[in-house]
């Protein structure tokens, strides 16, 4: 559905956001530590999420972009939960976090939808044209 070049651009956008954001989490940036402390997930949650973000960012640039997009969508759902229940929209950055989150979420969903058939195991059931049993 999504044009090949649009898809490529979306993948680059997601990777360009997730890789530095993930790195900053692993490097224990001040803002990240503060936010994860408020969630009660410091430091393990911060490290896990950082690793997941880097994994998703790298997968976004690989042929398995579908898996990267799925992980990214998952992280963003988690982030939405965090901002809606604990952190609030403005975490002292004028809502920049939430804006980025939305951008990554929408881009990832578009990529995931376009490449859903690449997903391991369940991919073949996500669209017509495969030859499994009913």
């Amino acid at each position, binding site marked *: 559905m999504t044009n090949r070049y649009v898809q490529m651009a979306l993948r680059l956008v997601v990777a360009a956001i997730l890789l530095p954001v993930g790195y900053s989490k692993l490097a224990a940036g001040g803002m990240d530590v503060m936010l994860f402390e408020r969630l*009660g997930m410091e430091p393990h949650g911060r490290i896990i999420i950082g690793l997941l973000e880097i994994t998703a960012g790298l997968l976004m640039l690989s042929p398995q972009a579908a898996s990267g997009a*799925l992980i990214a969508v998952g992280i963003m759902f*988690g982030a939405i*939960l965090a901002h809606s229940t604990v952190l609030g929209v403005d975490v002292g950055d004028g809502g920049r976090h939430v804006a980025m989150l939305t951008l990554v979420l929408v881009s990832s969903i578009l990529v995931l939808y376009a490449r859903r058939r690449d997903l391991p195991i369940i991919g073949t*059931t996500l669209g*017509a044209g495969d030859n*499994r*049993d*009913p």
Partner: protein
Amino acid sequence: MSVSSQPQDVRHLETRLSVNLDRVGKIANAGIVLALVGSVLLGHFVSFYFHFLTVFLILLNLLNFYWRHVQKAHTLLSNFGFTAQLRYLIESVGPEFRQYLYSSDNEERPFSRNERTEVYRKAKGIDSSAAFGTQLDWESGNHILLRHSFFPTTTDKLEPFRVTFGEEREIATAYAISHPVMISGMSFGALGSHAVRALARGAKKAGIPMNTGEGGYPKYHLMEGADLIFQIGTAKFGVRHEDGRLHEGKLAELAAKEPIAMVEIKFSQGAKPGKGGLLPKEKLSQEIAELRGVPMGQDVVSPPRPLECVDEASTVAFIRRVQEVAGLPVGIKFCLGRSVELRRLVLEMKRQGVFPDFMTVDGAEGGTGAAPRSFMDGLGLPLLEGLARVQSVLEEEGVRDRLKLIASGKLIDARRQLIAMSLGADACYTARGFMLALGCIQALQCNQNTCPVGITTHNPRLERGLDIEAKSTRVANYVAGLCHNYVEMLAATGKTAASELGRDDLFLPGAHQGGAS
């Protein structure tokens, strides 16, 4: 305990399915919604870590909703949701589990583990003795056996094997083989370049010829200097005009090449008799398209017969034309359908005084890179039936001495080869035997370009593991092992040459019950 017990038995059978899948599905589908609610609460009130689970459950619920209410392609997913995915998961690993764990050593098809192991052992040149007696299902009584003699020959008294193709026509290019087995037709296309070269190099080492298959110009077959039998398929790849008719110039040019020893015109193949060859588009590379002269991006489908051959007269004329252009021994390959048609063809051969130098009789059990299952399972005579009929027709028409007979179709061991020779064959072809020698594990993916051992694939990553030199030695070992078995079994029959074997040297279950033999 009489008539009334019957309904009870039936009821008993009806309750065999003890797991109520509908109920399991309902509980599971409701369960993941409840689990999501629970996870959200835990994440909110206990620890934010629980939201990892929340996220997973959100995704699972979304997917489950899609499977149950949006998609229409899969009934099971619609009715049961994500639990049905378990079936697909388990199903997808079924073939592996069956081969690794559950199938007995005599069970798998086309070749059982025991049969494959025999080939592997020969190819590796290791001892192939077995213990404690045969594992074949002896009570079934279905096995054709060779009859041995009270007075076996010793192997040094056997005549050296020699069959000369083309000697009947007394042509200068007559071709002699000194081993009873040859490599049957496998094209570059069906096989990858590594496999073709390993086979060709092995053939050269073993001193046997190799059939090129119908893959057009045999670029890779020619690389190793082995003797080749060039196969003209029904589409005549490599020697065709654009309209599919024979290109005499190209054929003459190929036949003049030194390694090309014989030509075989393929009329039909046991795995798909009455249907042309098929190369799936997944396996069609730029190079293959060029060697064959066909467009990219679509399956390469050959016609069911050579265009020139519309009846007996034109077929015999075509054979003569190929013999004249090629100047080599020329044979025809077919799987027998109706004996009466073969007889008409032979009568026409007699009328025109033209005979092919050999006939290759392929059995319905023969192999293929790709064919519809209905053709593999449903058409053509099995090798032994077909071979016996061809031999009868040739004998009855008094022309058996005008040509040689080659048998093909699962002839991967000396037992089967000697049985075929007892029914009239002068020599044997096998293709899958040699694939097994190359390391085939019978993954049954020849038509998908995903062959895990790099034989029937053009994927460089999969071909990487197929070392041409190492595997060519396996090929040569396999030939040596086959010939060793062949010689010893032939000596046990008390004969001095396979040509002395006849139908009476076989034990055909059922055929002789109560008879004197």
